[in-house]
């Protein structure tokens, strides 16, 4: 529009045959038109900016001590629902204490140019960014926060606040509800398809193998204890370290069959020393929660003394090996629980009912 106005001004040169007065009038008219167009355009830009920043005007949502600050573009009911449900998810699936959320301020899609959150009185609390997702076409978009995003943000922050053992061991998404049957399938696949020897020992029913697979003990030499040289050598072609191995002397020795070199090579790199991938570890926590409740998970995760196994056992008051063997059964049966009763005890209620009904039939008369 501005370009058009400029073009009009430039093209408004006097034409031969026009009197100076006429030219002057015409120039003034065009100039006034150009100025009017410019003012309109400026007003439009200001309105657009205003509309943009109004979307980011903060809206404070609170629930059970937790605070979520989102821009006005996110409907209040939507944000309230997300915060309530997110906190419920964390409470139901354990691990994150309720008071932890009270120490933080979750925010997303807010105008933070003029220290908005401090002005709202949240300066002393730790700020945590939460994902705000956009939906709909670009011409009329809508924004929303999900309960999952709230739960995830809090869980990740809580995980980062824990001691080094938990930070190292806790899998991603440990506190959100992915401990479903799909997860048991994932844990089953991981255990039965892993090329690692500890997985084989675990499938064969060896408790020590399962403990090493899950890496729940404080092993003195994690790589040497949990992996054999052959395991590590087999891992090389599948890992991102294969090029580094052939380029280094120790890696080369590993490829050539020296087990100690494999241990040294992997230990020197930032390769995870936990054989069990995430689904297996999530599975252990999920199974633990289903057996002993969310409170037990919360107690175990808050504990800072001893190994992961010792913390879990202390929180639930059970035997370490029974927990691990229970998990093995749960994994290999994809969600099954070992039988608690004998077949006779299972059959007893049905047989008692049958005897009672038969007694009624024997005594009765057909009418």
């Amino acid at each position: 529009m501005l370009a058009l106005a400029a073009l009009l001004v430039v093209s408004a040169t006097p034409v031969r045959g026009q009197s100076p007065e006429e030219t002057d009038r015409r120039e003034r008219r065009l100039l006034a038109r150009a100025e009017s167009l410019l003012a309109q355009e400026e007003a439009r830009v200001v309105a657009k900016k205003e509309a943009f920043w109004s979307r980011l005007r903060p809206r404070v949502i609170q629930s059970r001590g937790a605070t979520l600050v989102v821009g006005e573009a996110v409907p209040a009911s939507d944000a309230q629902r997300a915060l309530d449900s997110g906190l419920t998810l964390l409470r139901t699936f354990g691990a994150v204490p309720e008071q932890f959320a009270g120490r933080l301020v979750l925010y997303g899609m807010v105008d933070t140019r003029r220290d908005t959150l401090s002005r709202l009185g949240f300066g002393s609390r730790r700020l945590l960014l939460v994902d705000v997702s956009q939906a709909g076409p670009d011409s009329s978009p809508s924004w929303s926060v999900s309960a999952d995003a709230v739960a995830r943000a809090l869980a990740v922050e809580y995980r980062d606040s824990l001691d080094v053992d938990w930070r190292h061991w806790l899998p991603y998404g440990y506190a959100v509800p992915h401990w479903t049957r799909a997860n048991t399938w994932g844990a089953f696949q991981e255990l039965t398809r892993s090329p690692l020897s500890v997985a084989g020992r675990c499938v064969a029913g060896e408790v020590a193998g399962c403990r090493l697979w899950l890496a729940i003990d404080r092993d003195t030499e994690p790589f040497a204890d949990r992996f054999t040289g052959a395991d590590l050598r087999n891992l090389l072609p599948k890992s991102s370290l294969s090029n580094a191995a052939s380029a280094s002397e120790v890696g080369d020795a590993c490829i050539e069959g020296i087990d100690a070199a494999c241990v040294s090579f992997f230990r020197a790199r930032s390769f995870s020393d936990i054989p069990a991938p995430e689904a297996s570890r999530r599975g252990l926590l999920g199974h633990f929660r289903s057996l002993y409740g969310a409170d037990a998970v919360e107690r175990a995760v808050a504990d800072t003394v001893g190994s992961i196994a010792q913390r879990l056992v202390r929180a639930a008051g059970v035997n370490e090996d029974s927990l691990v063997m229970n998990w093995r059964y749960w994994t290999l049966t994809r969600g099954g629980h070992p039988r608690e009763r004998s077949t006779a005890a299972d059959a007893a209620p049905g047989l008692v009912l049958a005897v009672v009904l038969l007694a009624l039939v024997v005594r009765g008369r057909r009418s």
Partner: protein
Amino acid sequence: MFKQVLVAQWQTSKLAVGLLTLLSFCIPLLAVLYGGDLAGAGRERVGDWLIAADRVAQFPPFIALLVGLLLGTLAWSADLAGRHVYALSLPLPRGLYVSMRFGAGALFATIPGAAMGLSSGIATLAVSLPPGIHAYPVEMALRFWLASLTVFAIIFAIAGGTRRGQVITISVIGAAITLDVVFLLFGVDYSVTAEALLLLTNWPGPLSLLTGRWALFDV
């Protein structure tokens, strides 16, 4: 006298017993079809085999249910067809007659159970299992037999009960279904039949034997 009742009841039940026995015999052998030598097999194959064995293990409770349902209703079918004339003409008290009918039905229910036991034994001998995996042929057969017997006894008692008893049973089931429909119409998220089924199939519910793990091969 028991022999006569047994022979008469066999006439009505023989087809069902034959088919169910065949079915009971075949099911445990299905697990073997997925492979016999697992002792030296890779873990991946053992995993696949476990999944297949678990799938096969889903059938026996249904067959046990079928055995109980069919034999329970067939036990009284001849009496219902003959309007109880045969039973009334016998020089027997009702209690003894009912006991004989029950005994005959229970004996027939043992035949599929025995077939299940036999084929479970054959399946166990046919597979060389890797360490950590175990076979439970005796427990499987016992569970199957007890489940069939329980369902048979319940159905036998309902089918052979007084008309008043049958009307009460049908009315209770009808009322539960009607309540479910009413709840559905009013948008109430509650199902009486679902809750009742949960109570019946979870221990100490009388049908809890039908649920739970039925695997012939387990970890």
